[in-house]
């Protein structure tokens, strides 16, 4: 069987899940099947989509980045405070500062993982706390209120250059497109898959695993920084105790559902995008159906577990695949 076939099948499977889910919800609540709902779903996804592109690269390389929520919060607060304290500052400088800071925080993750050979789940669990603590210290635990967020930035979530689609959605999909090109059509992108597929063999094949792994964490951090800006744009404020809290699970869930294997080496941008849209639809539909917030978390969690079980069986190709691996 062809790799692309499996991928396509996985992506087709998610499309089918999205359609079935929408129809089922639509029968119970016809209001769900409207353009307005589609707009709400699409507005819910850009932050997640952008961060998911970074997270998927990290997971494809057989690592994980749990610190993205704190990086998002940190970068958003730094940009927000820049604009608050220097109202004359151009928007773009705040954006660049957020992305740059995200890259630096990602670099710290990458260095700890590669130089000290620490497991990324522990490193990023540590920096998840560390970055959040630093951001509280830096901001004096004070929120950046809506009046300080530049008007032009907030407009990017509302105004549209084309077909009524707001800027941040377009930016998010451009990021996804760039990620697709990078991962599928450059040597470096394919080497990320190689590292995740067989970390021991990669250096023997002349693949520079250490710098590439660091780069992957830097990209993940930078994209979390971009998501931080999007947060400020979309919600119009930045709060040290709220912004980005729990965001890592919001992002890892669609990545895994989209077919990115937590064992590394497997996953496509298309699948991840569809995973983000599916979970976006779920998160919009549940309140419309009158499901309580309490159950929303449980359902969200159940969807992740089901996806992991599917992932396991697809990866191993049933018993036959298992045997082939043991023999190898």
């Amino acid at each position, binding site marked *: *069987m062809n*790799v692309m076939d499996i991928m396509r099948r996985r992506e087709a499977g998610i499309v089918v899940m999205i359609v079935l889910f929408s129809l089922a919800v639509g029968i119970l609540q016809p209001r769900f099947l409207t353009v307005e709902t589609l707009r709400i779903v699409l507005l819910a996804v850009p932050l997640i989509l952008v961060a998911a592109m970074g997270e998927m690269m990290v997971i494809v390389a057989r690592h994980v980045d749990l610190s993205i929520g704190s990086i998002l919060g940190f970068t958003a607060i730094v940009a927000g405070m820049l604009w608050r304290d220097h109202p004359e500052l151009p928007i773009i400088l705040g954006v660049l500062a957020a992305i740059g800071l995200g890259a630096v925080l990602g670099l710290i993750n990458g260095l700890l993982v590669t130089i000290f050979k620490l497991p990324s789940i522990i490193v990023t669990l540590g920096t998840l706390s560390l970055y959040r603590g630093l951001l509280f210290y830096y901001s004096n635990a004070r929120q950046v209120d809506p009046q300080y967020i530049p008007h032009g930035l907030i407009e990017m979530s509302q105004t549209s250059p084309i077909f009524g689609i707001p800027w941040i959605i377009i930016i998010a999909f451009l990021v996804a497109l760039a990620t697709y090109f990078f991962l599928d059509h450059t*040597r470096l992108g394919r080497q990320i898959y*190689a590292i995740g*597929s067989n970390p021991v063999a990669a250096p*023997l*094949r002349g*693949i520079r695993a250490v710098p590439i792994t660091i780069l992957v964490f830097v990209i993940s951090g930078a994209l979390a920084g971009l998501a931080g800006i999007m947060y400020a744009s979309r919600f119009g404020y930045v709060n040290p105790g709220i912004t980005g809290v729990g965001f890592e699970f919001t992002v890892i869930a669609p990545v895994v559902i989209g077919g990115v294997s937590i064992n590394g080496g497997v996953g496509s941008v298309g699948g991840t995008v569809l995973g983000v849209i599916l979970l976006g639809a779920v998160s919009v539909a549940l309140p419309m159906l009158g499901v309580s917030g309490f159950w929303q978390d449980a359902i969200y969690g159940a969807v992740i577990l089901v996806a992991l079980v599917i992932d396991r069986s697809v990866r191993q190709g049933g018993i036959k695949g298992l045997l*082939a691996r043991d*023999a190898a």
Partner: protein
Amino acid sequence: MSAPGSDGPTPPRALISAHGISKQFAGVEVLRDVDLDLYPGEIHALLGENGAGKSTFAKILAGVFRPSRGTLALNGTPVEVPTPIAAQRLGITLIHQEPISFPDLSVAENLVLGRNEDRPLGRVRWGDLKRDADRLMGRLGIGLDVTRPMRGLSIADQQMVEIARALASDARLIIMDEPTAPLTPKEVETLFGIVRQLRAEGRTIIFISHRLEEVRALCDRVTIFRDGNRIATEDIGKLTDGDIIRLMIGREVKGYIPKHKATIGDVALAVKNLTLHGKFEDISFEVRRGEIVGLGGLVGAGRTDVARAIFGVAPAQSGTIFVNGQAVEIKEPADAVNQGLAFVPEDRATAGIFRTLPVEQNITAAVPKTIAPKGIIRRALERTVAGDAVQRLRVRLASIRQPIGELSGGNQQKAILARWLLTDPQILILDEPTRGIDIGVKAEFYEMIGELAASGRAILVISSELPELLALSDRVLVMSEGRLTANLPRGEATDETVMHAAVPRSKSNGNAQVAA
């Protein structure tokens, strides 16, 4: 396709010349002043006992190890080969017996990954990639879908992908380390066809194998290693099988191993017609009380599989095991333990120890009932039991509570032996008990094994070291390719008789039959 060395009027120039190559590991010299010239368009066999140095030499050529001394020259120019990548750039490729690959990536990608490293952001053109890959596979006459993932390919197909990979980087020296061991006879034929084609293209192939029959069928010249030295290099036609075996083993047995005196009693362990298809066939032998039976043969002959079958780790499909004359059923290791068996496996690191746990827990792991009579572990009892065992076997350690992973290999091995002795086994199976431990500790081990036999236990020792096997054993069994080929009493077991039985040869080659 350039054919190096063919463009001058002078005799063919060596593709690669090794001069004075030596290698030490932890102060032990495993390769000593090896000189060897390899020419374009030859298939050159490296032969030798396990540990003779042939694989080490091959790995030095391929950049896996760096030589302690000596120089390499490629087409007359001195070269350094510090890494496998450097080797690849020089046109030297090592093909592992079980190839390394990226199982989630396609065959085509596995062929090219790691080349063109200098342009990491270069585009991957999938169309070109597939076409190039198809062409490479086509040159080898292999009809493999290059877009499928590596995962699930047979070992033979994975080797073919490796060979195609070597061709893609235009390798001039291709080293194959026991490529045929995991292959079926038909796959071996295909492989040989391709290797001959590579020779016809002027490439040099190093072929490492234990199978003389294959070496005869394929190779032009042969180099024999023994104890880290290059003993001989000859055209294969000039040597008989007997010559080759004599060159491989020609050394005297060292005298440091104590001869042990045993009173041999009743049969403790017997196996009859034990068979596990693909691993071993029709194995029958017996071990008596007080007797040390050695099980010799080359790596991969199926010795460990027999031991694992007896102990119930991977039971045989047919055949019977007798303990003290009674037929017993051993389906899992617990059954074997109940029958009074103990098994010290070869691979300490993965099968024997719990690395991070303290020595005491490692030792008492096999006797939970002794240390926890009512299901709850009694720490004081555990400490006493483990402490006694440590003293009896003279395990050297800082504290009985330190993690076992911190001990030296020999002391880890002693601790594992201590664990099994606590179960008071009547039948002890030791798989390569002295592998990787230093000579002083080895001597202690031999003494201990002798004492265990003298106390009336039956002992089966698997060993790849001939001197050890010959000196320890009251009787030597030899396996070759899954079959028992010799059963030699102490007086008849010599280097020569054991090696004759161990080396797989063609049936038609009748000049050197087993002297059993």
